[in-house]
């Protein structure tokens, strides 16, 4: 039997005669370092350009070249952009994983594969499309050493043909991807695309049950990853000092920022930088520098992941106790220890909320989309200065590193405010100040910045015990007063953090509480529960810690509340337990996923159904 032949159609299960339009997942399995990212991005972008809601998830190894990587593109006319577990269309380029990838597919899926792998021999209930990649790449890429990189573009052509993706859109996406400077490379890749398309047009005459059809659901939208969105947020928040240490998956946040800042934050009059970005020697130094800068009045930030958060612990305690504004991005990955550096999780939640020894608590912001990465970053800088405290943005690898479809970001209309800072004129008027005295009843004292040109400006900042005047003390009453004021300040924050967002379901007995990237799966799960099980579920998406009154109200209104966590130990539920009344705690149940992939709706739905005893 020739490997070029597709699997016999009669062994395929019954499929509807019409194609599934704009509602399927494509998985591309490659070896990392083979240039597949370009091919995958082009494919995703061309579907986006045809107006279909789309998402792309990169599952890659912690390695530079040679290990398996999977890219999943989900097209959804319903606008679901979370990960979908079921794969409809596989492009199998990696000999190492091809067998397992094929065996995992549901009946009726389609497989484009490298012909010599002979995958069609594995199963008879799939649509197989063998492609002789090596034969096709040679004529379009005479330079042998480039073939490894160009080869992947062939599957873009094949997939375009099979799914009816318009080649003009592929070309547009390709040119955008390579930019004007690399026109030659773009042409080379375009040749490979066309070769794939033409081959598929001749070789494959059988129909495929999936199809892309033009829609109008992406007009005006952008494609961006969460890290880039945070970087833009920093730039428009007026951030001036960035000190960081590279770590996956946060590195691209600062790297993208460097690019934007060099373009847009160099003073046009003098040609000099209005910002400082410093790669520190480690995370201890990066947070220390950011705190030093925040103390001296800069809008300062650092970005890291779990291991960095652990290292920053001591300094964050200082920031809390000495009351210094700083914004810290935690782009979470799977722990503990080194864990799975290129997989996603929400497992730094408790650590970060209570980071450092002694009694400490920190505000956490939970963006769940690029739009919120941008807007919450701006909000976090305001918040950090308003409350003079380290403020965390809890992103994750899925949000930070994957490409997302998003609405264009609105320009920040609120002016930048700098919190309670006294200048020389204020000091002249007041005659002096007590750094840690609660004048306004909100727990926040007034500070001065070093360099303020006034004899009464100075105060001494320390991580050791201090009284209202910032003087050293070991007195019991001074210590207790100060700690009580800090606790009060945290209570005041509750009224100023971003409020949760509720998806109301009238008469729902059950509800979800989730945050961050769980949003996509939970929203889709609500729909699944309704459509498949006739269960109405309310959903409250938290956007910050400390929790607000709205969350308590939501729990009171539901009989059972499923708290969704992307970690093993139900950390969100754990934080809730620390402060909720027993009658509310009794209503909470846990839905957890911690396998390292973005959470999918089916996992949530199945778990809820099981717990509901249906």
């Amino acid at each position, binding site marked *: 039997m020739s490997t070029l032949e597709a699997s016999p159609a009669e062994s395929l299960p019954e499929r509807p005669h019409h194609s599934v339009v704009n509602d399927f997942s494509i998985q591309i399995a490659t070896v990392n370092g083979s240039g597949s990212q370009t091919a995958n991005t082009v494919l995703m972008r061309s579907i986006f350009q045809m107006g279909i809601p789309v998402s792309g998830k990169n599952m890659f190894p912690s390695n530079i070249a040679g290990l398996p990587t999977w890219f999943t593109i989900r097209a959804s006319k319903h606008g679901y952009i979370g990960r979908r577990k079921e794969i409809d269309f596989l492009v199998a380029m990696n000999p190492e994983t091809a067998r397992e990838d094929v065996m995992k597919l549901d009946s009726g899926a389609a497989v484009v594969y490298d012909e010599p792998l002979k995958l069609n021999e594995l199963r008879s209930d799939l649509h197989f499309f063998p492609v002789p990649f090596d034969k096709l790449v040679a004529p379009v890429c005479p330079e042998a050493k480039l073939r490894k990189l160009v080869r992947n573009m062939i599957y873009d052509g094949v997939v375009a043909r099979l799914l009816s993706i318009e080649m003009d859109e592929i070309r547009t996406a390709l040119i955008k991807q390579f930019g004007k400077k690399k026109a030659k490379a773009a042409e080379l890749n375009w040749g490979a695309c066309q070769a794939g398309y033409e081959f598929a047009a001749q070789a494959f005459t059988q129909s495929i049950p999936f199809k892309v059809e033009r829609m109008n659901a992406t007009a005006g939208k952008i494609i961006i990853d969460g890290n880039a969105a945070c970087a833009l947020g920093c730039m428009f928040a007026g951030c001036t000092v960035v000190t960081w240490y590279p770590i996956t998956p946060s590195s691209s946040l600062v790297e993208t920022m460097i690019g934007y800042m060099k373009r847009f934050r160099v003073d046009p009059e003098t040609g000099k930088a209005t910002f*400082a970005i410093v790669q520190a020697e480690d995370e201890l130094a990066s947070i220390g520098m950011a705190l030093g*800068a925040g103390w001296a009045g800069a809008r300062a930030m650092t970005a890291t992941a779990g291991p960095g958060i652990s290292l920053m612990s001591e300094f964050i305690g200082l920031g809390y106790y000495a009351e210094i504004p700083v914004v810290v991005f935690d782009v979470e990955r799977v722990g503990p220890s080194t864990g799975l550096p290129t997989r996603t999780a929400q497992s730094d939640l408790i650590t970060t909320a209570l980071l450092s020894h002694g009694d400490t608590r920190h505000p956490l912001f939970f963006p769940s989309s690029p739009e919120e990465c941008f807007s919450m970053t701006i909000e976090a800088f305001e918040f950090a200065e308003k409350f003079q405290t380290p403020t965390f943005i809890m992103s994750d690898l899925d949000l930070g590193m994957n490409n997302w479809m998003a609405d264009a970001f609105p320009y920040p209309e609120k002016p930048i405010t700098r919190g309670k800072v006294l200048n020389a004129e204020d000091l002249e008027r007041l005659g002096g100040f007590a750094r840690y005295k609660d004048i306004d009843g909100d727990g926040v004292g007034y500070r001065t910045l070093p360099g303020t040109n006034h004899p009464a400006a100075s105060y001494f900042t*320390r991580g050791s015990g201090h009284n209202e005047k910032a003087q050293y003390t070991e007195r019991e009453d001074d210590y207790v007063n100060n700690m009580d004021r800090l606790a009060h300040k945290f209570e005041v924050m509750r009224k100023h953090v971003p409020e949760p967002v509720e998806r109301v379901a009238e008469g729902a007995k059950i509800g979800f509480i989730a945050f961050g990237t769980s949003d996509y799966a939970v929203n889709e799960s609500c729909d699944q529960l309704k459509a498949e099980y006739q269960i109405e579920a309310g959903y409250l998406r938290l956007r910050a810690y400390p929790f607000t009154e709205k969350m308590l109200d939501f729990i009171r209104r539901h009989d059972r509340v499923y708290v969704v966590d992307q970690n093993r130990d139900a950390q969100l539920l754990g934080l809730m337990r620390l402060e909720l009344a027993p009658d509310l705690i009794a209503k909470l149940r846990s839905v957890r996923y911690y396998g390292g992939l973005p959470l999918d709706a089916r996992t949530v739905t199945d778990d809820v159904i099981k717990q509901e005893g249906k």
Partner: protein
Amino acid sequence: MSTTVPPPPKKVNRIGLEVLNYKGSKTTLCAGCGHNSISERIVECFYELGVEPWTIAKFSGIGCSSKSPAYFLGRSHGFNGVHGRMPAIATGALLANRTLLGVGVTGDGDTASIGIGQFIHMVRRNMPLIYVIENNGVYGLTKGQFSATADLGSTLKTGTVNDLPPFDCCALALRWGATFVARSFSGDKKQLQAIIKTAIAHNGLSVIDVISPCVTFNDHQGSTKSYSYMKEHESMLHELDFVPYYEDIAVEIPEGEVREVEMHDGSHLRIRKLHRDYDPTNRLAAATLLEEADARGEVLTGVLYVNTSKPTFLEQLDLVDQPIATLPESKTRPSRAVLDQVMEELR
């Protein structure tokens, strides 16, 4: 009939401030601690040079030495951070406000042990900061353990012998990029004054390693950081004189005896030769000298190295002249058109 005697005019410095403006709160360190002498020198130097105290920022880590910034320059902002991490705090503050004059005080535990990484990276960056190491070879605040600058074979009060060689912080600073490196002794008022004043005038990182005996835990026989050991083993490289930029330098200089180094602000460091000819702008010679003195069991004091031409880290960053911390929104938030442009690129 009585006559009222007018009070004597208060003594002020060249910007009209009394010395009180340069003092801090009362020290809580032990009587006789070398650190107190260093605090006094810092007060004198800034007072005498007429630096506005509110343009200075003080930094320290943790330990006896790091408490001392509370005891000088009370009108300057101070930051007593965490153990060994003073360089990070100072670096961040100076990034935010490049017009601050940074003074850091640390100990040998801070610099040579827990914070040696931050120390050496700050050296590598040539951060413009005065970095004083109050070096007594011992952990005072935890009651007398060896530090990493304790000499091989020196003993604790308990008789315990140190069996590891010391880090020479000057050698580290010299090798990896500091642009002003000096060693002094807390008991040498004149030399320490000249060194601190030169550091104030210097644009770049000044590392000043000051042997500062701990009277409680490391001033006994067997210590190599005691007052008596220093009296016997100190070897002064030269005599130093600091001539500030605002003073007339047209003083007759004996030919061949004195070398002058012009500092960034126009001040001059006048170096009078003692028993050897020494060029402090020669880094290699300084390294050799340190090794030789070490072999002879001498503690060399004086200015080991000065480089007035190497750019500082802040200069390399090419920042605007004003402190970036307090730039107005018009400079730190790009326009609506910029956001539109970026959004268009992402479509």
